[in-house]
């Protein structure tokens, strides 16, 4: 390939020193450069740029346009500069459109060789409007069929209002015959043949008149027209350029050096003007390790992760810059957890047993009135959470979500009961991460064992029953999202193995084996009579199910005590 076969058109509006540096780099390597400087740049800065490059024979400046984002002026600037390039440098075969914030990542020679091997190929991203998913404001085909007299940046409300009005009225501009709307990155590399056919088209006036009123024509003018004239479109940009969720280009900094180097892309934008290390490292002639195809996969992943962090965030995290409204949390809590109601009342060593069997962290009653019963009854827990009940009750939701966030990666189990602070009952019921198992009426067992006056017991029983009934109705409500299992106390003690197995399997699905060791069931001799006494005192204990007065419950032939799954 002859020298000077690759020319660069550069569109510049800020950081002109950097633009000059890159232009000089290309020009000195025998690549002609035509520079367009935004008309809004002051005369002084412009004169300085011209002066910086005046000793280079193959640098030209083209007629200046004021390029507001999304307007026709950017296309006009590109057209004018391209015409200068084609007219003044007859040796140029490929024209590369770049910006002042572009930086070559590989030596120009490698790019020339690459194009040399593909002398008839036009590199331009060009996608039909049906297939793009990245357009700002959700406008794709409508960019071509509506009118946009208002600035998107400065008159957003008017802009949106006018779009709505046109949609409602059903207004459509007529798309000129032969124009099939395509969109794509504005940074392209076209052959002289293709570019000159577009620029010398006898109908260009008419086409330009149409595109003048298309929204963001710099992403559609060449992308659309190239489809009419080029037999050989490679629909991708040679410039690595990524956009964030607002449609603003991602910026590269010094710490991207390695990832940029490994991308094997030819040119990247947008570079932060003060990224000295990048400019120092890439404006050289050092050949890259292997002459590979551009491979921006890693950078794609980096940026798509960043966008995901911004739009979806980390589930279960509440912090200074993420405080989701209810039901917009993408996960109320950070991880699955298990809530047990009534189990410690029925079994004597339930916490120890559960933690041994499932290998999880088993807390006591985290919402107990006196203190937070962390596993091992620690005074401070993971993340430096305090066991102070006052601090917990000050913001119970913050307490639980913090605990679950702090212990990510380790399944948490907690005891809950009608004697606890119920502030989070609804929160847990609506949380898909919660697995709630309830033995209803089990709160009566400690009362049964207690040495208190029966009047007090009766009063407390009535209160606990009321609280638990409310909790159960929360669990059964239509918006409840937790995995809920409820057994009555009678059902449970009749056949405790099956419920325990179900619950344990769900917590640690990998240890799919039969339970060998069972927690110790507390002594219930006389419990039936105890319930009868409550009835005799005028209270109606209902949540524990049918207990015969004469204690022969466990003598009965074992009925299949199926847990019923509420959700």
């Amino acid at each position: 390939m002859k020298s000077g076969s690759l020319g660069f058109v550069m569109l510049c509006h800020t950081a002109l020193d950097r633009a000059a540096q890159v232009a000089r780099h290309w020009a000195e390597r025998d690549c002609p450069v035509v520079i367009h400087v935004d008309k809004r740049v002051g005369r002084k800065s412009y004169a300085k740029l011209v002066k910086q490059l005046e000793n280079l024979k193959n640098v030209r400046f083209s007629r200046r346009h004021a390029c507001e984002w999304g307007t026709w002026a950017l296309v006009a600037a590109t057209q004018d500069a391209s015409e200068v390039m084609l007219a003044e440098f007859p040796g140029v075969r490929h024209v590369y459109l770049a910006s002042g914030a572009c930086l070559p990542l590989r030596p120009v020679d490698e790019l020339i060789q690459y194009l040399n091997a593909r002398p008839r190929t036009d590199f331009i991203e060009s996608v039909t409007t049906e297939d793009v998913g990245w357009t700002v404001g959700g406008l794709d085909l409508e960019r071509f069929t509506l009118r946009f007299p208002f600035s998107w940046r400065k008159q957003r409300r008017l802009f949106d209002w006018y779009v709505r009005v046109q949609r409602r009225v059903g207004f459509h501009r007529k798309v000129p015959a032969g124009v099939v709307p395509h969109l794509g990155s504005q940074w392209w590399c076209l052959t002289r043949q293709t570019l000159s056919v577009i620029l010398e088209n006898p109908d260009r006036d008419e086409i330009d008149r149409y595109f003048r009123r298309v929204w963001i024509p710099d992403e559609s003018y060449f992308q659309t027209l190239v489809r009419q004239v080029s037999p050989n479109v490679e629909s991708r940009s040679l410039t690595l350029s990524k956009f964030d969720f607002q449609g603003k280009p991602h910026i590269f900094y010094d710490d991207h050096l390695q990832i940029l180097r490994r991308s094997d892309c030819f040119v990247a934008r947008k570079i932060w003007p003060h990224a000295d290390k990048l400019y120092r490292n890439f404006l050289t002639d050092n050949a890259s390790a292997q002459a590979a195809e551009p491979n921006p996969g890693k950078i794609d992943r980096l940026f798509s992760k960043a966008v995901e962090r911004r739009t979806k965030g980390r589930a279960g995290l509440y912090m200074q810059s993420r405080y989701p409204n209810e039901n917009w949390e993408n996960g109320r809590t950070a991880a699955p957890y298990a809530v047990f109601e009534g189990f410690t009342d029925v079994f004597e060593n339930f916490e120890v047993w559960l933690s041994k069997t499932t290998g999880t962290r088993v807390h006591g009653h985290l919402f107990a009135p006196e203190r937070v019963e962390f596993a091992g009854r620690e005074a401070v827990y993971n993340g430096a959470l305090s066991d102070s009940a006052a601090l917990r009750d000050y913001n119970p939701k913050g307490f639980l979500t913090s605990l679950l966030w702090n212990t990510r990666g380790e399944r948490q189990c907690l005891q809950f009961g009608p004697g606890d602070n119920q502030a989070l009952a609804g929160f847990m019921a609506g949380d898909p991460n919660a697995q709630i198992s309830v033995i209803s009426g089990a709160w009566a067992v400690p009362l049964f064992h207690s040495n208190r006056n029966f009047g007090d017991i009766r009063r407390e029983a009535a209160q606990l029953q009321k609280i638990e009934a409310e909790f159960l109705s929360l669990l059964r409500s239509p918006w409840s999202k937790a995995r809920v299992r409820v057994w009555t106390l009678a059902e449970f003690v009749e056949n405790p193995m099956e419920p325990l197995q179900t619950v344990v399997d769900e917590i640690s699905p990998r240890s799919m084996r039969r339970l060998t060791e069972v927690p110790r069931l507390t002594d219930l001799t006389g419990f039936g009579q105890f319930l009868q006494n409550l009835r005799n005192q005028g209270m109606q204990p209902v949540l524990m199910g049918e207990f015969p007065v004469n204690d022969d419950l466990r003598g009965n032939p074992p009925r299949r005590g199926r847990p019923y799954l509420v959700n």
Partner: protein
Amino acid sequence: MPEGVRQQGEAGVRLLSQYVLRLARKRWLVRAMRKRRELQPVVDRTNLISRDGILLFSTLRNEKIRLPFFLRYYRDLGVNHFLFVDNGSDDGGREYLAQQPDVSVWTTSASYKRSRFGADWLNWLQRKYGHGHWTLVVDADEFFVYPFCDTRPLRALTDWLDASSIKSFSAMLLDMYPKGPFDAQPYREGQDPLEIANWFDSGNYVMSRNRKFGNLWIQGGPRMRMFFTDAPERAPALNKVPLVKWHRSYAYVSSTHSLLPRGLNQVYDEWGGEKASGVLLHAKFLDTFGTKAAEEMARRQHYANSHEYRAYNQVIGTEPDLWCKWSEKYINWRQLEILGLMSKGNWA
């Protein structure tokens, strides 16, 4: 009530509250104008401020020992000019600052409390010198950490914020403390205080929305855990918005916890996403703390009748140790990001 009437009613309330906030903002600004008379310039180098300079504003009293490292830290980040209000220091700090080439100093002996803890003074200076600049408002014991701060200067952040049309950036206050009693390792002038106070609470923070100003109210950390179990609602606020592209019509409402117009407090995402945010490492708990607490108690110039300092004084009588076995040792911003105390947002 018919839907239409209710909506009208709500719109009316919204308008009214907008109007009330507008009045409040004007009032703070007028107050700042009035309080400017309390400020005497010591040395005014504001003519050195360039058009796009990043400015740091701070109020202080008797912090000389901290100043050398403080200035170095923020110069390294890329702060171009410092504007200090000295509230009657008698430890030579004012004279030290006056010698620095990139510092302007005003002094006052007026009441810290009655200047709303320095906010009035700084509102005035920011209005006069901060308009159109990125301004950082921090105390002498606060160290700003933001995503990529180990590889990208502050200007990279402010350029990105500009490009993203973001006007304010939050940085929660993170209390740092040593392992063992505060006075076990004396702090030397010029030393990085985070060499001593390098532990923090990683996950005991709670927050709620302040409906009036729209900001989050964050509390927690070691101070709440140790000193405020009896009165959690009085635990100090940790939410801060220290970095703002200032406009002369803006005003901080109370310290840097919230500001007006209220849109500037919208530094958090409400739809599940994460906005970018940083942290202010709060290296308050050094050996200097004991004397400071005693002095501040005597002056009664701090927030909520110095309840905070009173609580400290009670506990500090008994060999205080904020450290516990779940304390986390500080490494870098990435650690804070992983812990969920700050976020990169979509900055990559």
